[in-house]
């Protein structure tokens, strides 16, 4: 089984370099990591050192933070060719829906930001455009008490929607430093507390890898590749 961590933040967004993250992830048993910082310019920091780490694949993605729909679509279109993986910083209801309506987007990260989660309209659009939803387990680890309970309720509702519309699920902790990383086994266990079966969690951990591999091929148009 290949396990991927799909929403890493390294310097300058996080607090560790890509190579440090790669080493830590490898030790925990990951087959690959996807670095998705908020701005693509910041990733190049010491990427060569990360490449030297053997045994783990380092993919460059981008997490788009947008304030309005048009900006989101514009950035997604321009970044699509350069990134192996495109994620959108979710949280706001309108941004969630805009991300789900954009076929260029691979994944919606932590959609349950504030009070709202994914809506039915967004879920339907995500199904049509094959946008995956990322279950962010970071709050589960860092929150306590009442706020965690509320968060879990919201996530459960979102998981129901994901189930009903048969969307692709991905799991991550959105680590900002190598100390935030958790091993795949831990993630599967945490996910099971929220009602995600083991098999589904494992599939969710392997999914980013297949998407990155698909994105790396040369595509001319829908379903058409150049060999």
């Amino acid at each position, binding site marked *: 089984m290949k396990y991927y961590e799909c929403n890493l933040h390294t310097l300058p967004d996080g607090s560790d370099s890509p190579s440090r993250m790669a080493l830590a992830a490898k030790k925990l048993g990951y087959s690959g990591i996807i670095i998705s910082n908020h701005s693509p310019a910041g990733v190049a920091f010491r990427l060569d050192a990360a490449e030297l780490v053997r045994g783990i694949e380092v993919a460059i993605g981008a997490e788009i933070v947008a304030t309005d729909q048009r900006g989101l679509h514009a950035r997604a279109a321009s970044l699509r060719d350069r990134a192996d993986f495109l994620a959108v910083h979710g949280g706001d209801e309108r941004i969630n829906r805009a991300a789900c309506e954009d*076929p260029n987007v691979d994944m919606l990260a932590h959609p349950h930001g504030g009070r709202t989660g994914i809506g039915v309209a967004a879920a339907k659009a995500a199904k049509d*455009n094959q946008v995956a939803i990322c279950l962010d387990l970071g709050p589960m680890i860092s929150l306590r008490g009442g706020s965690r309970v509320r968060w879990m309720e919201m996530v459960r509702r979102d998981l129901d929607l994901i189930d009903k519309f048969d969307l692709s699920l991905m799991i991550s902790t959105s680590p900002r430093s190598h100390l935030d990383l958790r091993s795949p086994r831990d993630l599967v266990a945490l996910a099971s507390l929220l009602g995600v079966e083991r098999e589904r969690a494992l599939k969710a951990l392997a999914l980013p890898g297949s998407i990155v591999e698909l*994105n790396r091929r040369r595509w*001319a148009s*829908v*379903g*058409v*590749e*150049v*060999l």
Partner: protein
Amino acid sequence: MMITPENLVRHELIGLPIEVVEGRNPSQVGISGRVVDETRNTFLIETRSGDKRVPKSTNSFLFTLSQGLKVKAVGSVLVSQPENRINKKMRRSRWKL
């Protein structure tokens, strides 16, 4: 305008060298030859051992363009009558079906 990988879905496929590279029916995978005719759902391929009609939706095909480029296309994108295909709008991105 030559046939380019971007054009392929809208261009004339009759006369192109073709090969079935993936498909639900294992006996069809490996059929190769030239496209001689096309209906909404099938290709008629002339091979060394005769003409074979293969469905589009369940197979993936490899076309060889004039410059030597090989382009692999998922069959379900090509499902349509040949005269209608020229109008088809490609809105999705890349590999998303």
